[in-house]
C-alpha cells in the first residue's frame, strides 16, 4: 500500500492545483531559457545565412553587426582578387521603419549582389530576386504575401519570395533587396543634411558605400590567410566566420545573456523557495497523520518515503506540465523560443534536486513530531 499515492488521490484536487501552479512557474523558467537560446540563435542567423568563410569590414570596427562599418563599394573587387577567394559579395545592412496598410513595420534590410554571396539561403516559397530593381525577398515574420507591393523610400518593392526564420538580432524580420536598391534606400533615408552633402560630393563618402564584403574561400586555403591578406589594406578589417560569430555572441548577446541569466537564476531561486514552502506546509498539514503513523509503529523510512515521494511526484508532474505548456505555446511568443532537450533535462534535474533538498525541511519536521501528539484530543 503506497501511502504517498493514497494521500495524493484523497486530496487530488489540491495536488493538481499545486502542480498546476508549480508548472506555470517552471514554465516561465523554461521559457526564459528558451528565449535566451532563441536570442542567440536569432543573432547568429544573419551571420550564418550567407554561409561564407571571411568577413571584411571597416578597420577599427567590429562590424557589420556589432558596430557600424562603411567601406567603399569597390572593396569587393579587391577582395575577390585575393588568393584563395572563390567568390566575394558586397553587402549592406540597415534597419528601416515604414508604414504599410496603416501598420508600422520594422525591417532589417539586407542588400546583396545577385549571383554573389550574401543573399538568402533558402526560399520557402516564391523565388529569389531575378531583376536588379524593386524586388524583395521577405521573411515570413514580416507577414507579407507573395506579390504584395510595399513602399520603401520612394519606390514600391514587390515581394517575390519568402524565407523562414530570418530575423535580426533585434528580432526584426529580414528582407533582402539588391545592393543597388539598398544603397539608394540608404541615401534616401539618410538625414537631409547628410544627403545634401553626399549629393554635392563634399562628404567623405559617396553613394557607393557598402557595410561589408563576404567571401567564400577555397577549401584548400585556410581562411586565416585570406584574413591576414585583407588586413594589409589599412582601411579594412577582416575576420573569419567563427570570429564574426564570436563577436556577435560576445557583444550583441552578452548583455542580454547576463540579463536573462540573472533573471533565470532569480526565478529558479523563487521556485526553490516556493517548492520548499509547499512541501513544508504539505507536511505541516499531515503532522497528526504522521504522529498516528508513528504511534502505530511506522518506521522513519516509511515516513520519509511518504514525504519524499510526494515531493518528487509534485516536482516531476509540475515540471512535465510546465514543459508541455511551453512547448504548446512557444510559437505564440513574439520572438523565437528555442527549447533544447538538454536545457529541459538540466531544469528537470534542478527541480528534482530542489524537491529532495526542500523536502528535507519537511522530513526534519516530521521526524521531530512526538507520536504522543496523536493521542491528545
Amino acid at each position, binding site marked *: 500500500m503506497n501511502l504517498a499515492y493514497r494521500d495524493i488521490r484523497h486530496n487530488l484536487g489540491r495536488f493538481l492545483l499545486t502542480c498546476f501552479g508549480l508548472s506555470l512557474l517552471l514554465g516561465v523558467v523554461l521559457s526564459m531559457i528558451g528565449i535566451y537560446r532563441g536570442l542567440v540563435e536569432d543573432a547568429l542567423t544573419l551571420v550564418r545565412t550567407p554561409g561564407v568563410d571571411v568577413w571584411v569590414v571597416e578597420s577599427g570596427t567590429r562590424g557589420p553587426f556589432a558596430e557600424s562599418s562603411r567601406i567603399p563599394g569597390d572593396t569587393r573587387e579587391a577582395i575577390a582578387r585575393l588568393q584563395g577567394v572563390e567568390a566575394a559579395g558586397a553587402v549592406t545592412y540597415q534597419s528601416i521603419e515604414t508604414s504599410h496598410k496603416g501598420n508600422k513595420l520594422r525591417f532589417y534590410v539586407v542588400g546583396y549582389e545577385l549571383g554573389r554571396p550574401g543573399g538568402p539561403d533558402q526560399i520557402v516559397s516564391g523565388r529569389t530576386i531575378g531583376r536588379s530593381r524593386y524586388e524583395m525577398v521577405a521573411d515570413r515574420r514580416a507577414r507579407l504575401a507573395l506579390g504584395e507591393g510595399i513602399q520603401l523610400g520612394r519606390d514600391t518593392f514587390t515581394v517575390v519570395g519568402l524565407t523562414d526564420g530570418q530575423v535580426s538580432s533585434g528580432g526584426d524580420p529580414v528582407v533582402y533587396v539588391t545592393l543597388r536598391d539598398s544603397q539608394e534606400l540608404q541615401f534616401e533615408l539618410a538625414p537631409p543634411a547628410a544627403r545634401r552633402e553626399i549629393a554635392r560630393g563634399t562628404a567623405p563618402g559617396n553613394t557607393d558605400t557598402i557595410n561589408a564584403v563576404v567571401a567564400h574561400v577555397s577549401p584548400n586555403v585556410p581562411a586565416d590567410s585570406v584574413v591576414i591578406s585583407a588586413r594589409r589594406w589599412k582601411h579594412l578589417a577582416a575576420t573569419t566566420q567563427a570570429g564574426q560569430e564570436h563577436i556577435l555572441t560576445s557583444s550583441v548577446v552578452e548583455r542580454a545573456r547576463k540579463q536573462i541569466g540573472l533573471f533565470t537564476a532569480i526565478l529558479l531561486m523563487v521556485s526553490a523557495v516556493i517548492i520548499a514552502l509547499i512541501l513544508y506546509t504539505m507536511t505541516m498539514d499531515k503532522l497528526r497523520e504522521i504522529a498516528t503513523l508513528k504511534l502505530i509503529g511506522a*518506521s522513519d523510512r516509511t515516513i520519509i518515503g511518504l514525504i519524499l515521494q510526494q515531493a518528487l511526484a509534485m516536482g516531476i508532474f509540475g515540471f512535465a506540465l510546465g514543459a508541455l505548456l511551453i512547448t504548446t505555446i512557444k510559437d505564440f511568443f513574439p520572438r523565437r523560443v528555442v527549447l533544447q532537450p538538454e536545457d529541459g533535462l538540466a531544469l528537470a534535474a534542478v527541480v528534482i534536486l530542489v524537491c529532495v533538498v526542500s523536502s528535507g525541511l519537511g522530513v526534519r519536521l516530521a521526524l521531530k513530531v512526538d507520536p504522543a501528539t496523536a*493521542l491528545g484530543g
Partner: protein
Amino acid sequence: MIVSEVTRPAPLVQVHKVSKHFGEDETRVDALRDVSLEVSPGQVVALLGPSGSGKTTLLNVIGCILEPSSGRIILDGEVVYDGRWLRSDLRRLRLEKVGFIFQFHNLLPFLNSTDNVAVVLNLAGYAAAEAKRRAVELLDYLDVAHRRDAMPASLSGGEAQRVAIARALANHPRIILADEPTAALDSQRAGIVMDLLRKVAAEQDAAILAVTHDEKIFDRFDRIFHLRDGALETETSNVFG
C-alpha cells in the same frame, strides 16, 4: 478473588515505581509519582482521576511513547524500561505488543476503513492480500464490515471508533491502551464499544487499560485505578469483574 489471585497468569503490564516529571525547579510538574500497578491477561482496567492527574501520562509511559523519569516497566515479560529504555526500536515494540485507541479515532483520512486496518499489518510485514483479508475479518468481528470501503470522513463516530479498535487489534497486540475511547460517543454506542473491548480481552487474552471519565461505563471494568496528583490512590475491584 483470593483464589484467582493465586492462579492468575503472569501479568502483561507491570509498572514498578514509575515517576515522571516535566520541567525543572519552578516549572517542575510531577505528573506521575511512584506509580506501581499490574494488569493481567483478560483484564479490562479503568484509569480514573481528575483532569491533570496524570492518566494520559501513565498511558503514554506504558505505551513507550513517553520516557519515564525513573522506575521499571515490563511488558509481556520483557523489561523495556529500567531507568532507561532497554530497546532502541520502540516503534517496532509498539507494533508488536501494543494497540492504541484514541479519544478521537485518528484514522488516516486518506485510507478507507479496510486499509486503515491493513496499514498496520503492512507495516508489520504482511503481504498485501493477507493484510486485506485479515482487516476485513477484523471489521467483521467489530460489526463494521458493511463500511469497509468507506472513507473515515463518512463514518459515524461509533463506526469510526470501531474501525480504530479494529486497527488497534490488527497485529494481535496483547496490550491495548485506550485514552477516553468512548468520550466522543453517546451512551449506547459507548456501551457497545466497551462490550467489544471486553470481548477482545476475553477472547484474545489481552490486557486493556482505558482512561475514562464516563460513569455510565464503570460497570464494564474489572478493576478501577484512581489517580490523584500523579499518585495511585486506591484501586476499586468491580463487582461485575
